[in-house]
C-alpha cells in the first residue's frame, strides 16, 4: 500500500472512517478522512469497491470491521435512518409519485417536522438551487441536471453532517455535463460538513474534489489533492486515467534505472532502460511524463533530448487532434504526435523509430 500522504492535521476531522468489508470474493479495507467542508472523491475502476465504501458510510451495508466517526461521534452502530448523513444516489432515485417539493420535504417530515415547516424548508432549498419553478413538478418532468439538484436538496434537507454522492454525473448526457458539474461544485462548496463522492471519471474528481482517494481492488492506492494525483500518479490505472507514461525504477541522482517490465522488448541495448529526470532522488522512484512530451525521429537525434530510446511501433490510433503511437521496447510508452509528423515519418506497425524526451519534462518522485 502506498503511504497516505498529506492527511489533514486538523484535531477533529469531520469524517474519520476505516471501512472493512469481507464478502468472500471481495474484500475492502480503506481509511477515509475529511475535514469540515472538504470534498473527498473516491476514484477507481468499476468493481474497485468505491460504491461499497459509500454504502458502508451510509450504513446500508454492515461493516465487517472498522469504524465511522462523524464530527467526532461514533456512528458505526447507528442504523441508516438515524445516521447524520445525506445521500445522492446514482440515478437520484427521486420518489416518482411525489412532487419535487415533497421529495425534498420527505426527510424533514421523517425527522418530525410538521408538514408546513417541512415544506417551507424544502421550498427554501429548492429556491436556493434555482428550482422555484419546478417545485410542483414530478421527477419524470425534470431534466437530468434539475433532478440532480432536487436530489441534492433532498439530501441536504435533513441537515446532514456527512454528504455522500454516488456517481452524481453518471446519469447525465455528455452535452449537459460541463454546466451541471460546475454548478454542482458551486453548491457543494457551501456545505460545511464533509462530502464524499464516488466517481470513475477522473474529470469529475479533478473538478469537484479537494482531495482524491484512488481505490483499486478494495485498497486505497493513492491519496492527495487532484493536481498532485494528476501530476504524479502512483499506479498504472491512475496513470492511464490522467494520461501519463508511468514507470517504476530506482533513482541514483537524476538517473532512474527502470524495472525490466515485460522482460524488455526488441531494440533495447541489452540492459535495463534508463531515464534522466530533472529532480534528483535516491532509492525507489516513479517516473512520469506525458505522451505529448515524446518526440519521434527517424534517425538518432543529436542535441537537446537527454532521453533517447530506439523502439518499435506497436499501434497507431487517433487521439483528439493528435495521433497516439504506442511503442514497445525499453521502455514501452505512448507518444502523441501531429498527423503531419506521422505522415513525414511514414510509420507503420512494426517499424523502428527513435523516441526522445527532455529531462525537464520528466517527473520523478519517491516510489
Amino acid at each position, binding site marked *: 500500500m502506498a503511504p497516505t500522504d498529506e492527511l489533514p492535521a486538523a484535531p477533529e476531522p469531520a469524517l474519520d472512517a476505516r471501512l472493512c468489508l469481507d464478502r468472500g470474493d471481495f474484500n475492502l479495507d480503506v481509511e477515509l478522512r475529511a475535514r469540515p467542508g472538504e470534498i473527498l472523491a473516491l476514484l477507481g475502476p468499476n468493481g474497485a469497491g468505491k460504491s461499497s465504501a459509500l454504502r458502508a458510510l451510509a450504513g*446500508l451495508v454492515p461493516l465487517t470491521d472498522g469504524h465511522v466517526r462523524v464530527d467526532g461521534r461514533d456512528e458505526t452502530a447507528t442504523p441508516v435512518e438515524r*445516521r447524520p448523513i445525506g445521500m445522492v*444516489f446514482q440515478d437520484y*432515485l427521486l*420518489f416518482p409519485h411525489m412532487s419535487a417539493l415533497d421529495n425534498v420535504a420527505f426527510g424533514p417530515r*421523517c425527522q418530525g417536522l410538521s408538514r408546513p415547516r417541512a415544506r417551507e424548508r424544502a421550498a427554501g432549498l429548492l429556491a436556493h438551487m434555482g428550482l422555484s419553478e419546478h417545485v410542483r413538478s414530478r421527477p419524470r418532468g425534470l431534466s437530468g441536471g434539475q433532478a440532480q439538484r432536487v436530489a441534492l436538496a433532498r439530501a441536504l434537507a*435533513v441537515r446532514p453532517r456527512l454528504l455522500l454522492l454516488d456517481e452524481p454525473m453518471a446519469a447525465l448526457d455528455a452535452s449537459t455535463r460541463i454546466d451541471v458539474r460546475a454548478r454542482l461544485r458551486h453548491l457543494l462548496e457551501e456545505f460545511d460538513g464533509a462530502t464524499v463522492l464516488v466517481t470513475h471519471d477522473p474529470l469529475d474528481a479533478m473538478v469537484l474534489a479537494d482531495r482524491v482517494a484512488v481505490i483499486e481492488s478494495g485498497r486505497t492506492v493513492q491519496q492527495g489533492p487532484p493536481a498532485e494525483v494528476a501530476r504524479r500518479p502512483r499506479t498504472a490505472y491512475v496513470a492511464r486515467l490522467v494520461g501519463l507514461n508511468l514507470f517504476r525504477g530506482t533513482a541514483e541522482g537524476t538517473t532512474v534505472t527502470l524495472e525490466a517490465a515485460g522482460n524488455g522488448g526488441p531494440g533495447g541495448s541489452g540492459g535495463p532502460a534508463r531515464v534522466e529526470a530533472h529532480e534528483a532522488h535516491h532509492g525507489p522512484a516513479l517516473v512520469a511524463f506525458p505522451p505529448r512530451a515524446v518526440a519521434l525521429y527517424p534517425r538518432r537525434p543529436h542535441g537537446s533530448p537527454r532521453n533517447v530510446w530506439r523502439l518499435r511501433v506497436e499501434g497507431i490510433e487517433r487521439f483528439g487532434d493528435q495521433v497516439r503511437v504506442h511503442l514497445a521496447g525499453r521502455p514501452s510508452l505512448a507518444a502523441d504526435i501531429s498527423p503531419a509528423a506521422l505522415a513525414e515519418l511514414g510509420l507503420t506497425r512494426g517499424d523502428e523509430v527513435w523516441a526522445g524526451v527532455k529531462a525537464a519534462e520528466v517527473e520523478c518522485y519517491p516510489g
Partner: protein
Amino acid sequence: MTPEHTPVPAPRRGRALRARPGRPPWILVLPALAGAAFLVLPLAGLLVRAPWSTMGSRVTEPEVLAALWLSLSTATAATLLSLLLGVPLAWLLARTDFPGRRLVRALVTVPLVIPPVVGGVALLLVLGRNGLLGRYLDAWFGVTLPFTPAAVVLAQMFVAMPFLVISVEGALRGADRRYEEAAATLGASRVTVFVRVTLPLVLPGIGAGAVLCWARALGEFGATITFAGNFPGTTQTMPLAVYVAMQHDPEAAIVLSLVLLLVCLAVLATLRERWTNA
C-alpha cells in the same frame, strides 16, 4: 406498389423496401384462432339464447337483485379483508427472511390448487359450530359462522386471497429496492418506508391483485356452497343462483349469467381505466 412498367426496378416504395417480418406460421395461427373461438363463442351463445323480450322484468326480480347485491357486497368485503391481511403477508414474504419462509409461501398458495369444495370442507371443520376454533367462537362469543353472509366472505377470502398475495409479492420483488434505501437515508423508519414509498410504488400491482381477487371471489362457488350453504337472501350468491336456476328455469339462468358477465366487464373496464391513468 405502383403498377408502372419501367424496366429498371428502381427503389420501390411501400412493402418492397421493408424487411419482411415474415408471415406467422399456420401451425401457431390455427390453434390460436381455435383457442380464441373457444373462449368467445360460449359468451356469444349466452347473448343469442337470452330471452331479450322479458329481460327487463326478469332482471328486476327481487331474488335476482338480492343475489346480485349479496355477491357484490361479499366479494368486495372479501377483497378489502384480503388487502388488509394479504398485503402485509406479501411484504413479509418478499422483504424479510425468516426460517420457514419458503414453506409459508408454499402453504399460502395451496388454496390456488385445491378444489374449492375441499376448501369449504376444511373451513367447516375449523370454523363450523363443532370445528376446532368454531366451538370456542360459539361457546365464548355465541358466534356461529357457517351458513351466514360472513361465511360467504370467509369462503371467498380463502379461495381468492392467494391471488392477491402472489400478485403483490411479485410486484414487491420487482420494485426497485433502492428507493427504500433512499428513504432510509432520509430518516424514514421501516413503517414509514412501507407506507410512503413501497406502497405507492407497487400500487399498480396491488390494484391488479385486488381485481383478480375480486373477480375470483365473485365467481366463488364450491367453498361457498359447502361452508355457507345456499339460502336465498343470506348466502345464495349469483353463481349459486345461476346453478339453482339451471335446474328448473334455464332462461332465468341465462339472465343471471348475463347480469354477472355485464357487472364483471363494467367493473374491470372502470378499474382498468383508473389504473392505467394513474
